């Protein structure tokens, strides 16, 4: 006999609310409140990603939302599926005492604590200055990112894991 179980999904929203557009991930977390199934874990993180990597173990899928360096246009949303793409590494420019998301995921994969499926939503920022308000174009991307995350969560949960009993 075989049973099916919904896959465990973790949503991680990253950012610093005091650094302008860097807070976009945390705004998405607020927007997602009440929109996700109750068995989906959501974590808002503005501190140390290293100490939380152990908490990724046991999840089948993870969706990360973070601000990205300016590239083309503020507020532009980039969706990266790590099944088909890689995040650039060694991009943590200011500190050796903190890992960037790409390095953290690489380390978690080596340590076998990384979820099998990982999606990244990166919102292009315009400015990361301390104490400045969020750029309107970046703030305007919050609703769309949240909607995409809701759809991805539903899809990721539907990838049914068959458990032999």
């Amino acid at each position, binding site marked *: 006999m075989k049973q099916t179980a919904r896959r465990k999904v973790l949503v991680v929203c990253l950012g610093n609310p005091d650094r302008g557009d860097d807070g976009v991930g945390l705004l998405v977390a607020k927007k997602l409140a009440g929109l996700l199934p109750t068995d989906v874990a959501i974590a808002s993180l503005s*501190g*140390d990603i290293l*100490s939380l990597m*152990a908490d990724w173990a046991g999840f089948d899928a993870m969706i990360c939302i973070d601000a990205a360096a300016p590239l083309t246009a503020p507020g532009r949303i980039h969706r990266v599926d790590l099944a088909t793409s890689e995040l650039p590494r060694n991009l943590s420019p200011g500190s050796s005492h903190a890992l960037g998301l790409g390095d953290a995921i690489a380390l978690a994969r080596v*340590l076998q604590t990384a979820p099998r499926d990982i999606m990244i939503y990166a919102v292009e920022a315009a400015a990361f200055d301390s104490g400045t308000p969020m750029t309107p174009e970046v703030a305007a991307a919050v609703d769309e990112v949240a909607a995409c995350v809701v759809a991805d969560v539903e899809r990721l949960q539907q990838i049914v894991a068959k458990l032999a009993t």
Partner: protein
Amino acid sequence: MATKTIRVDFLARIEGEAALDLHVADGQVVTAQLNIFEPPRFFEALLRGRGYAEIPDIVARICGICPVAYQMGAVHAIENAVGVAVGGQLRALRRLIYCGEWIESHALHVVMLHAPDFLGYPDAIAMACDHGDMVRNGLALKKTGNELIRILGGREIHPVNVKPGGFYRVPQRAELEQVAENLKQATENAIGLLRWVATFRFPEFERDYEFVALRHPDEYPLNEGRIVSNRDIDIAIADYTSQFEERHVAHSTALHAVVKRRGAYLVGPLARYALNFDRLPASVQALAVAAGLGPVCRNPFRSIIVRAVEIVYACEEALRIIADYEPPDAAAVPVEPSAGTGFGCTEAPRGICWHRYEFDADGTVRAARIVPPTSQNQPSIEADLVGVATPLLDQSDDVIRSRCEQSIRNYDPCISCSAHFLKLAVHRS
């Protein structure tokens, strides 16, 4: 005259930005200059005109890895200026949050930044392929240290719950009992980490350092004590400038601190351990001896073992404090501003961090001065580099570069704190 240059444009696994120039003549390293080009951050200037109560939150921003050190130095200096003493459980809680910082800072450096040097890996991610258990161990220790800081400081980076006189809020027993369970496992993890690093192969290198650290009558030092050295310095914290001076050097945006009329000195784990071995519990002393350490260690490469010893100590000390904890009636004792000057000095993970503030009658900061550990260690780092590089001059530039980088990481330097890192150039003539 032939000149050869080896350049390291960026030193990995340290905090901040700098470069290193080695000047070689007649087969000898003449000078080693650590060129710190991180922009000055002007914290002392921006503290002027601010209220005394704002200082702990401002100085916490100096460093993301050791904010507690800056907060503790500041609150002790403020209290020193107004004649307030904080004792009992509030004093114990300050020691407890500092244990959290030692655990997270040392665990990060030992596992993620320093261990790859000894095992021949470019970074901790590559090292994790073969030593995953120890990387998990280090990450678990860091998480436990962060947890202590979060409970007592309100958040794990740049905590916001420290104030002159104590805290804005003190934890309930149940909050600390929860982290105590994690600390018991952390102690086991720390002992495992200590035994692992003790198996590393260390370069044969020793220097006759002048060790400088705090010394307390009863405790392994964290927040209090007299400033002592192994060369007869034994002074009150307020008298720091009677024995030490900071100097501008052309090649660094960070000041260099020296002992007056003598020169370089060493702060940090090696100094703290050598001057306070007798203040460690017998259980921790026994673990240190089993790891191959005597009561004094002069090999800077073995500082990784001393850091691991200090992680064990911090875990045990945190458990002791929690076991004795009873929530105090008030989260802080009253601190009323008055005109005056106050001094504070505590043992940051990287060594003593000295503060001096002048206040107006209403508590406004008239002047501030902060001497971080990495500034104090810079002359010693440069002296180490001369000693380490000289026997290697017949070897390839890559070998010299690698060993010099490892030597600098012996110090776990925080350039961001000191001004604040590494390009290496070897000039051979």
